[in-house]
């Protein structure tokens, strides 16, 4: 797991801008922190040494106020742009993931990636927000404030710099070491915790059943016992898991204390002046601060990184190349299916198996067969949404007018034509039809304000949509939301069927 994946910058333009901005803000913050420490030391030291009063300190105090004002602005800007970038990035990646999965087609979605894409597209990517607004800025501060402060400390006092340089690498080292040592134990505990937690939920889900058996009073004790076991198990995990936090705190605080003592002892022996000593003392905690914050936000960011990685996996799937040949004009033409076989994913079945059929102009062809025999898959193959494992589908144009005696109309294999030009000639009514957000009228192809044509009324009578319209208080203007909210499945099918009858393509497919 990379803390900052280069793919994030490659795929998401908002991330590029934001990382650049945050890096700039981080560099400015680093400069201000260093200057602030130096100014503060220069104000305090002469007063402690009775060499200056308020009058002499006024100019430096003014500068200090300016520095603080600048840091307030920087903090505001970081938070303001951080919040915005988090939302931008999530929105950007979501659009990309959805667009890519639509382009990859239903077969790819059906191969087990569908639910994951749905989760990503609806709420999974939201986990990226804390990563962007909290974790990334600290990561960039660790890359700017930590080295800048350390360099200044090195110039001021080599001993303090040495202490910091030695302890700094120990932080990640020990955290990795503790993590490795406790990983197995933590994972085992987590599994136990997951099981205990799901058992309580299982009992909650079973309440109606327990009530029906008059046994709802028994498990109360069981729920309490499970809760107690869950607590003990979790505490066991936490005792181990918090060790890495302990190491982080111990190393960062103890090294600041060591720096303070070392500086103090050198001051007593006169090797150092107070201004330098104070500056080092103020800067030492700043070196560690971003690292501690990274530790604090680490877990929140892990979910975000995981979500981003799933998004990148989707975006990394190469798109199949789209042929440029347009489909022939199919009005009056025909489709020839020869020996079509498709292996069903996940099942050791071929459905359809060796299907041959000629779909000729002016004819109605019925595909019949029991459940699972491949009727829908055959339709998908016919639409070019599924690639056949064997056999061929060819589009045969109508003989052009005037050349009716042309001996052999040319047959173009379906996989060689641009699907968009083929789809534009097809009307497809799937089992679970989709309705565009709008009204019933807009879904049967009416523009806003357009009157219901006799053709639509006839089609609606045929499909029974007229009854549906009559039963709705808003009639044709009944709003249908995403997924046809407000209408039953049967009513949705009638709307979609009417739409298919009103504006049929050269090929009408009713599944």
């Amino acid at each position: 797991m990379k803390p900052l994946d280069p793919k994030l910058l490659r795929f998401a333009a908002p991330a590029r801008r934001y990382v650049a901005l945050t890096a700039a803000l981080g560099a400015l913050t680093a400069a201000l922190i260093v200057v602030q420490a130096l100014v503060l030391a220069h104000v305090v030291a002469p007063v402690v040494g009775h060499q200056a009063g308020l009058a002499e300190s006024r100019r430096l105090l003014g500068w200090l106020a300016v520095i603080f004002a600048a840091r307030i602005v920087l903090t505001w800007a970081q938070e303001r742009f951080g919040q915005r970038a988090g939302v931008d990035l999530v929105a950007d990646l979501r659009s990309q993931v959805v667009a890519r999965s639509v382009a990859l087609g239903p077969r790819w979605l059906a191969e087990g990636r569908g639910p994951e894409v749905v989760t990503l597209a609806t709420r999974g990517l939201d986990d990226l927000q804390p990563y962007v607004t909290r974790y990334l800025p600290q990561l960039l501060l660790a890359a700017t404030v930590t080295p800048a402060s350390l360099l200044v400390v090195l110039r001021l006092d080599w001993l303090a710099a040495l202490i910091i340089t030695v302890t700094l690498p120990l932080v990640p080292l020990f955290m990795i070491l503790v993590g490795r040592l406790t990983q197995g134990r933590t994972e085992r505990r987590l599994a136990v915790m997951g099981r205990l937690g799901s058992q309580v939920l299982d009992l909650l889900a079973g309440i109606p059943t327990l009530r029906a058996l008059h046994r709802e009073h028994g498990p109360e004790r069981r729920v309490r016992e499970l809760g107690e076991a869950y607590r003990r198990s979790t505490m066991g995990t936490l005792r181990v898991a918090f060790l890495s936090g302990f190491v982080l705190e111990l190393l960062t605080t103890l090294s600041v204390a060591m720096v303070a003592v070392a500086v103090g002892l050198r001051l007593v022996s006169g090797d150092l002046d107070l201004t330098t000593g104070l500056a080092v003392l103020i800067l030492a905690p700043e070196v560690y601060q971003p690292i501690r914050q990274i530790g604090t936000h680490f877990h929140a960011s892990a979910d975000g990184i995981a979500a981003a990685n799933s998004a990148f996996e989707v975006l990394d799937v190469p798109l199949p190349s789209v042929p440029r040949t347009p489909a022939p004009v199919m009005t009056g033409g025909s489709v020839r299916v020869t020996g079509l076989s498709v292996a069903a994913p996940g099942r050791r079945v071929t459905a359809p198996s060796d299907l041959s059929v000629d779909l000729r102009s002016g004819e109605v062809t019925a595909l019949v067969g029991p459940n699972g025999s491949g009727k829908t898959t055959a339709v998908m193959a016919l639409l070019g949404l599924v690639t056949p494992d064997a056999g061929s589908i060819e589009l045969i144009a109508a003989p052009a007018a005037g050349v009716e005696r042309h001996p052999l109309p040319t047959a173009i294999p379906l996989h060689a034509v641009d699907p968009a030009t083929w789809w534009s000639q097809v009307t497809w009514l799937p089992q679970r039809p989709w309705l565009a957000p709008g009204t019933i009228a807009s879904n049967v192809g009416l523009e806003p304000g357009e009157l219901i044509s006799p053709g639509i009324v006839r089609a609606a009578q045929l499909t029974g949509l007229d009854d549906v319209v009559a039963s709705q208080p808003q009639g044709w203007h009944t709003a249908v939301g995403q997924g046809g909210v407000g209408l039953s499945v049967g009513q949705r099918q009638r709307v979609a069927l009417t739409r298919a009858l009103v504006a049929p393509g050269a090929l009408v497919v009713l599944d």
Partner: protein
Amino acid sequence: MRDRALPRALRLLGVSWSRAARAVFFGFLALGSAVALGGVSAWLIARASQMPPVLTLSVAVVAVRAFGISRAVFRYVERLASHDVALRGMSALRSRLYERLSQGRLDAVAPLRRGDLLARVGADVDHVGDVVVRSIIPAAVSACVSAATVVAMMALLPEAGGFLAVGLLLAGVAGPWLTARGAARTEEDSAQARSDVSALALDLVDHAAEQSVAGRAPQSLSALREADDLWRASTDAGARNTAWGAALGMAGLAVAVLGALWCGIPAVSSGRLSDVGLAVVVLTPLAAFESTLVLPAAAAQWHRSQQAARRLMALWDATEPEQDTFAPDAVPGSASRLGSRPAVAGADLVPAEESDMILSTSGLVAGWTAGRPVTGLPDLRLHSGDSVMLTGASGAGKTTILATLAGILAPASGAVLTASRPILTTEDAHVFHTTVLENLRVARGAVTPAEAREALDVVGLTPWLSALPAGLDTMLGPEGSTVSGGERRRLLIARALVSRAGILLIDEPAEHLDVETADALVADLLRLPQLPLTVSQVRVVIVASHHLGAARFADQVIDVRPWKPEPPVED
């Protein structure tokens, strides 16, 4: 009312205040160590610069080192203590929620069978518990440490302490308040946009093929982008608040440090403050503001937990227990009057007329909510060996009748008289995530393996059982996912059999089975009362099903129809 949700939920947590106080105490020691480290090391360095004998510094040197260690140690102890408090609370909340739901209104509990709702209840309990660890205890620790630091600084120089107090209030109260308001505002403003975005994205992914073929995909994608833009715009006002909240944190530090210098420098000149004291007064605030760092997150957590508490309390209130359901102390085996509402006309006690009567009803009308009857039932007089089949269109009220006969639902009017408690097996009954045997023991704790095998044999599951890897000890998956539909139904009936109930009510045992299997199963069930007592204790069976193929095995077939004011007609 809504805003009382979190305090109410917190009361249900039953947090032990002495344990919480212990966690706050350790947190105080941890953060106090950090502030003390800052103050003492400032003193050490300022004093050292005056080159006193080294021995006079030894106490400070030891203290600095000790604070360097104690901070991490106390923080570790505090984290464990506060998590312990929260986990105890979450455990108590889960138990209370279970107790409440197990006695509450069934229609409010039933939706929990949906996996996502159930998971949300689980997550909501966790969120309410989190408020202790991430919000209440950190805020208390921060308040204690801040107060102590202010008092210490006031002892050195009252004005400096005053500036520190103002700064800490800015960073620790005003800032987090703005942050929380920002979070709440963002959520309020963007709720609609967010749900639009989700719905559009879901629609596109679910219907990708159809939209591509219909040429609508580009249009839908641009609609999604537009919705994303709206979402972005709607989060803006809240983000502005959050940004100001963060800026206030830095402003607080500025007020404290500049204020300490402003009044400290003249105080040194006038002798009110020692020279070394100035270093302490100026540098201690740098460490003191660490205690306010966690507060914006604490405020945001409070807001999140509040929403979780609202959902939980809404569930809690929706499951207001029915007062007049089956009395828990009713003795099985003796005739008992099931809950009737005396307020409803015609609900007088029906005496047992015959000694071998197992179940009888009079003028029974059933419904889920008072005043809205779903259906009625002709009067039943069932004796040992009787079987009844309820038929009727879906939604006619078959399930409602069975739930009323089982005593889970109080009759809207009329009365039910039974010789023993009926057991209801519904089509969607829960298969628990445990072993086959334990799933049967759900009905009666003392079921022996032999009894379990017998019951599974009666429902024709012996071949299935012998194919299981660990027999009766095989774990069944969550939601019974490792069991096929037909096996699941038979398992549920076996569970009803081992309960040794005399009256069995079975709802739609054959749903989604093919016709032959369904008819065979329903016929088997209807013949259960005729089996010898050694095989099955079932004396009366009532099956609701629309598989009429097995109807000839029933002694009585009743067509259930939706409620109309006139009394229902018997076929």
